[in-house]
């Protein structure tokens, strides 16, 4: 018990160790968290009338962000596959940071769902046993299961690896091996189930296309790794963690393939919708060309398409892929492109035209934007704090005390040899 408390304080102290930049960063994030919190308090008191959502477009920016972040979380698997199955060493060492990103992204997903709820105090109604979870009929119930399961799997793997490292021991693959294997199909499942959530609704022809789940996965495998590439460079610069260039270039190459598939699937969908031109194609026409003079999403969608195509070429050629300036431009383009395409570009046109043919142009309110930025700041803060523990443990700077001093010393002397 004593060592546990002591270790807790060893870990807790980490939050307060940092230079000026760290404190500024935390203050910066806290500012946006507070702004978001005040906007949410107002929303909680007055209801979702503070948003631009209405009966015609009943989901908006919050669910868009949720969808995008499920993709980011799923992409952690992209690192796990080559790392463990093919034993690609340069990536293996950094999988941990990907898993922590998955934990962060899922936490943000849960926050986005909570702020979107009309009655957040009743959230327990969705749980099994104490609530009345509508499993297996409701896809939203499936999503609760797979997302929380994914959070648990990644949380356990990350915690176990960090714990073993922190007491100066190598982690045992026989313990987490099965979990890692499980996490691969599970990552695919969280994005597939989220796609099916939309896909299963025959009321919304835009979503009711079988290509939706494959497109979800392809775009997730672009945006998630792109975020990681940027994070890896920051981690590498600001700590002693050594991340091999080969790992970064390998991931960039994988993004190129994923983007190729993503663009191909987009083209396949666009062909079917525009060439056959039935009544079900109104939504995609609204998205790319506007309907009846209503064009609010059109510039965004063309921008996203251009960004994705540009990024594809940047990642495709080794010359631009292995140049950090063009690599980072590519990453930013992919993140923005997929954020538009898999966010507002996916959710809003599902509701336009609405079930009775009305075109309601949705554009988020200031309050919605503040709450959204607040949750992004929460996510950034969570990841920062997770790294605050993970990085020093990983580099061997932070070690916990163990009960068995004798054994600890042996482990230490082993390391010394």
């Amino acid at each position, binding site marked *: 018990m004593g060592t546990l408390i002591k270790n807790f304080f060893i870990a807790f102290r980490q939050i307060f160790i940092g230079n000026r930049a760290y404190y500024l960063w935390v203050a910066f994030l806290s500012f946006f968290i507070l702004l978001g919190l005040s906007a949410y308090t107002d929303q909680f008191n007055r209801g979702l009338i503070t948003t631009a959502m209405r009966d*015609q477009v009943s989901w908006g920016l919050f669910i868009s962000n949720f969808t995008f972040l499920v993709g980011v979380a799923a992409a952690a698997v992209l690192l796990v596959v080559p790392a463990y199955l093919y034993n690609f060493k340069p990536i293996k060492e950094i999988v941990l940071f990907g898993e922590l990103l998955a934990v962060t992204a899922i936490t943000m997903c849960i926050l986005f769902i909570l702020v979107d709820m009309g009655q957040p105090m*009743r959230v327990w109604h969705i749980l099994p046993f104490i609530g009345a*979870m509508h499993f297996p*009929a409701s896809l*939203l119930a499936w999503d609760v299961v797979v997302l929380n399961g994914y959070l648990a799997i990644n949380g356990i793997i990350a915690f176990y690896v960090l714990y073993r490292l922190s007491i100066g021991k190598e982690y045992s693959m026989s313990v987490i091996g099965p979990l890692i294997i499980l996490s691969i199909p599970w990552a695919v499942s969280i994005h597939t189930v989220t796609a099916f959530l939309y896909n299963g609704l025959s009321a919304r022809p835009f979503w009711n296309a079988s290509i939706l789940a494959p497109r979800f996965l392809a775009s997730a495998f672009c945006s998630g790794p792109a975020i990681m590439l940027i994070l890896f460079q920051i981690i590498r610069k600001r700590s002693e963690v050594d991340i091999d260039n080969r790992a970064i270039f390998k991931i960039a190459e994988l993004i190129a393939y994923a983007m190729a598939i993503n663009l191909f699937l987009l083209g396949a969908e666009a062909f079917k919708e525009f060439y056959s031109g039935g009544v079900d194609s109104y939504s995609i026409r609204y998205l790319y060309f506007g309907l009846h003079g209503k064009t609010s999403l059109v510039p965004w969608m063309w921008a996203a398409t251009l960004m994705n195509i540009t990024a594809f070429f940047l990642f495709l050629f080794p010359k631009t892929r292995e140049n950090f300036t063009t690599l980072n431009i590519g990453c930013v383009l992919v993140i923005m492109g997929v954020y538009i395409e898999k966010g507002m570009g996916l959710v809003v046109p599902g509701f336009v035209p*609405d*079930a009775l043919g009305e075109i309601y142009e949705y554009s988020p309110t200031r309050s919605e934007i503040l709450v959204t930025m607040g949750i992004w700041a929460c996510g950034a803060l969570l990841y920062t704090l997770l790294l605050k523990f993970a990085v020093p443990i990983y580099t061997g700077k932070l070690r916990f005390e163990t009960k068995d001093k004798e054994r600890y010393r042996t482990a230490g002397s082993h390391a010394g040899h």
Partner: protein
Amino acid sequence: MGKFTKKKDGIHLDRRSFLKGAALGVAGIALPLHKADASVWEAFFQKRFIEMNDAEKKQVLARLEREYEEKYKIAIKVGDEKAIPGVLFGYGLDLSRCIGCRRCVYACVEENNQSKDPQIQWISVLRFKKGEKWVDLENSDRYYNPELVPEEGYFTMPVQCQQCENPPCVRACPTQATWKEPDGIVVVDYNWCIGCRYCMAACPYGARHFNWAEPGRKPEELNPETHYLGNRPRYKGVVEKCTFCIQRTRKGLYPACVEACPVGARKFGNLLDPNSEIRYAIEHKRVFRLKEDLNTNPKFYYFFAYGT
């Protein structure tokens, strides 16, 4: 040694009472303890209506009546009339008669206690130009506003909950807060709905409406005759919908929209009764149902009784 144990116990107890205090404190922030009696807790831990026994239902209805009286300063009766055995409600709408006057829309709002600010209406009347295609509804206008109806060159089609036999909204709901009653009416438990709005995405008829704000309606305009699953006053952040006026039809009355229609375009009755008016219409008129290709199997039939 004895002293040590005592001390240890003391610390143990202290921590426990501290935890208790902390838990109460957290709960106190989350739920307004000062204002209310046990009723806030009762409301919070209320079960799904469909899972309650009669005694529990009675208790809940009494509590709701108390709450409404406190809130609106008028007596509101909350009933829970059960489905009549052997009844499956069906609706018929004669498009050849409808003139688009929207009296059904306002009669519905008066009867069913919808919010007036922000405005919630369970019936949407769509106006179409004659001679243009209308199957995809995309050329319809919900906000037409002429001096007089019927308008030359236009026809109108009211749309409300189609009370599907295979309702996509019920399947979508993650908390089973909405279900189909034995008489075929799809209802919402406003005390169980979490306000996720997945049902609204799933509904092909735009029949579900959300309380984006606290429902705004003058207390003197409230209809005090209500049903738990129907027109009782709603809360902010929950979904609501047409219930075929469950509070009326289970007592043998017509829905408010049927009574309000000045041209007799609206028919209502028991689909299981071969002699009912609705059965006559289905068997003798040219009948169709909205978006039949989705296999939702609505119990809302549009038909053309005559001519033009």
